[in-house]
C-alpha cells in the first residue's frame, strides 16, 4: 500500500496512458480525437512553457518560434527522407532544444520584459527564415501526406482493419497523450528536485540565488533547452496532424498567448497548473470554435485572462489552496 502511495504519480501516468489507448479502441467519433489532440498538445506546450516561465520566472513569448521550428524540422525531414514520426519528433525536439540553448545563452542576461521581447523577436526571425525557404514550402505552405500503413519496430501502426489504430487521428491522439505525459513527468521531476528549487530561488531573487551558490546561468540554460525541446517535440507532430502547414499556422501568435495564459489560469507554481489551464481553456476554445465562431475563442481567452489576473493572480490552484487554508 505504501508502495502505491509512493508511486502515486507514476501510477497515475500509466493509468492516463492506458485510458488514452482505450479511448482510441472504442471507435469514437473522429472529432473527439481531433479536438482531444489539440487540448493535449496545449497541455504539453503549457507544461513546457511553465518549466521556464513558472519555475524560473522567465516569461517566454516565443513559444510559436519553438513550436514552428519543431514543425518545420519534421517537414524538412519528411521532404529529405521518409523518416518515421518518431524520428521526426526526436529531430524536432533536438533542433528546438538547441535553439533554446542558443537563445538562452544570448538572451538570459536580459531580465523581465526584455527577455520576453527578445523571445518574441525570435519567433518572428524564425518565421521570416521559413517564409523564404522553398525546400519546406516557403510562404505558400506545404502539404504532408501521412505515410500509408506506417510501421514502427515491425508493428503495423495504422491500418483500417489490421493496425493497432484504425486511423491516423487515433494514432496521433495516443502519441500526443504519451508525449504530454512524458512532459508532465519531466516537469514534475524538475519541480521536486534540486533544479526546481534552484529555479525557484532564481525567480525570487536571482542575485541572492547566485550569491548563495546557485549556478544561475547553468540552471537557466538547462531549463531553456528542456523547455524549448519539449515545445519542438509538440510541434513536430503538428504537420502530420494538420496535413497542411504554412508559416502563419505554425508560427501563430495564438500559441504564445495560450501557452502563457494556460499556466497562469491554472497556477504556475506546480505541474498540475498548466494541465488544468490547458484542459479548461483548451476545451472551452474547442467548444467555442464549433458552437460559436472560430474567431471568438481569442476573445474568450482574453476575458478569462483578465478575470484571473484580477481575481486569482496565482491561478486556479492558488485560489483553491488559499481558500482551503482559511
Amino acid at each position, binding site marked *: 500500500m505504501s508502495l502505491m502511495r509512493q508511486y502515486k504519480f507514476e501510477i497515475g501516468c500509466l493509468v492516463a496512458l492506458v485510458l488514452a489507448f482505450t479511448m482510441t479502441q472504442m471507435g469514437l467519433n473522429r472529432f473527439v480525437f481531433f479536438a482531444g489532440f489539440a487540448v493535449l498538445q496545449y497541455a504539453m506546450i503549457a507544461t513546457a512553457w511553465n518549466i521556464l516561465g513558472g519555475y524560473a520566472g522567465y516569461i517566454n513569448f516565443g513559444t510559436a518560434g519553438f513550436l514552428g521550428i519543431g514543425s518545420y524540422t519534421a517537414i524538412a525531414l519528411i521532404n529529405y527522407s521518409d523518416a518515421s514520426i518518431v524520428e521526426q519528433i526526436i529531430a524536432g525536439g533536438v533542433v528546438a532544444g538547441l535553439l533554446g540553448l542558443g537563445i538562452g545563452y544570448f538572451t538570459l542576461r536580459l531580465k523581465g520584459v526584455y527577455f520576453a521581447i527578445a523571445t518574441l523577436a525570435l519567433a518572428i526571425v524564425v518565421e521570416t527564415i521559413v517564409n523564404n525557404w522553398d525546400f519546406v514550402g516557403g510562404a505558400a505552405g506545404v502539404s504532408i501526406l501521412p505515410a500509408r500503413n506506417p510501421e514502427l519496430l515491425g508493428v503495423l501502426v495504422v491500418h483500417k482493419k489490421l493496425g493497432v489504430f484504425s486511423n491516423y487521428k487515433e494514432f496521433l491522439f495516443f502519441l500526443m497523450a504519451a508525449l504530454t505525459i512524458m512532459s508532465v513527468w519531466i516537469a514534475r521531476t524538475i519541480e521536486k528536485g534540486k533544479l526546481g528549487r534552484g529555479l525557484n530561488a532564481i525567480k525570487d531573487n536571482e542575485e541572492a540565488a547566485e550569491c*548563495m551558490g546557485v549556478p*544561475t546561468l547553468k540552471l537557466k540554460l538547462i531549463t531553456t533547452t528542456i523547455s524549448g525541446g519539449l515545445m519542438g517535440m509538440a510541434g513536430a507532430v503538428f504537420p502530420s496532424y494538420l496535413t497542411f502547414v504554412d508559416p502563419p499556422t505554425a508560427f501563430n501568435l495564438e500559441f504564445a498567448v495560450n501557452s502563457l495564459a494556460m499556466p497562469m489560469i491554472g497556477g504556475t507554481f506546480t505541474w498540475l497548473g498548466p494541465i488544468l489551464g490547458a484542459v479548461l481553456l483548451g476545451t472551452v476554445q474547442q467548444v467555442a470554435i464549433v458552437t460559436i465562431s472560430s474567431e471568438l475563442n481569442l476573445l474568450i481567452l482574453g476575458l478569462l485572462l483578465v478575470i484571473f489576473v484580477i481575481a486569482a493572480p496565482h491561478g486556479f490552484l492558488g485560489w483553491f489552496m488559499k481558500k482551503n487554508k482559511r
Partner: protein
Amino acid sequence: MSEVLLNIENVTKTFGGFTALSKVSAAVKKGERFGLIGPNGSGKTTLINCISGMLQNNGGSIIFDGKDLKGLQPHQRTKRGIARTFQIPRPFHSMTVIQNLQIPLEFVSSSGTSQKNISEEAMSILEVMSMEDKAHHETSGLTQIELRKLELARAIAVKPKLLVSDEAMAGLTGNEVDEVLEILVKLNEDGMTIIMIEHIMRAVMQFSHRIICLDAGQKIADGLPEVIVKDPAVERAYLGV
C-alpha cells in the same frame, strides 16, 4: 592569525567615466574582524561587490585563500568560501524561512547529502539565530530584525571562510544591534573571518580588530579602531571640515 585570507591589491572599478574605486588595497587576515567604513557613496558596497563577484573589477587583483578570483562567477566564489549579506534583505519570498536556508545548504555546503540532513542542518543554524520557532513561517511576515537575521543565517549556511556583512544592523534598535553583534562575535570565535560594513559607529568600533575607511573610492585610513576614530582624514570625510 597572521596568515592573509583575502588580499585586495590596487582594485579599481569604473562605471563609464566614473571611478567608483581607485587602487584600493587591503589585506584581511585569517580570523580577523575587519571593519569597512566610509560615507555614503564612498565605494564600500562596490568593493564587496567586486569581492563577491557581482561586479568584476577593471584593475588590480583580489586573491582569496591563495588563489586569484579573477573571472569567477559569484556562485563559484561562494563555493570557495566567500558569503555575503545584502544591505537590503533579499529573502526568497516564495519560500519559508527554513527553505531559504536549504538553498545554500543544498547547493554549497551540504551538497549531495540527503534532504533530511539538509533540514537538520538548516534547523541548527536557525537555533544559533534563535529563530527556530519561525522555521516554517513565510518570509513576508518577518520583522526587520528577523529579516536581517535570516540574511545572516543564509550566508552562514554556506559555511564560509569569509563572511561579508553589508550593513546587517541598519535600521535596528540598540538591543537588536547587540543581539546581531553577539552572533557575529560568536561566529568569529568559531573561526570565521568577518568583514563588517556598518554605519553604526558604536557597533563597528566595538567589533573590529582593524578598520579601513574609504572616501570617494580611495582608501584614506587603515588601522586600529581607536586610531581611526581620531584620524583627521576620516573626520574630514565624515564631517566635511
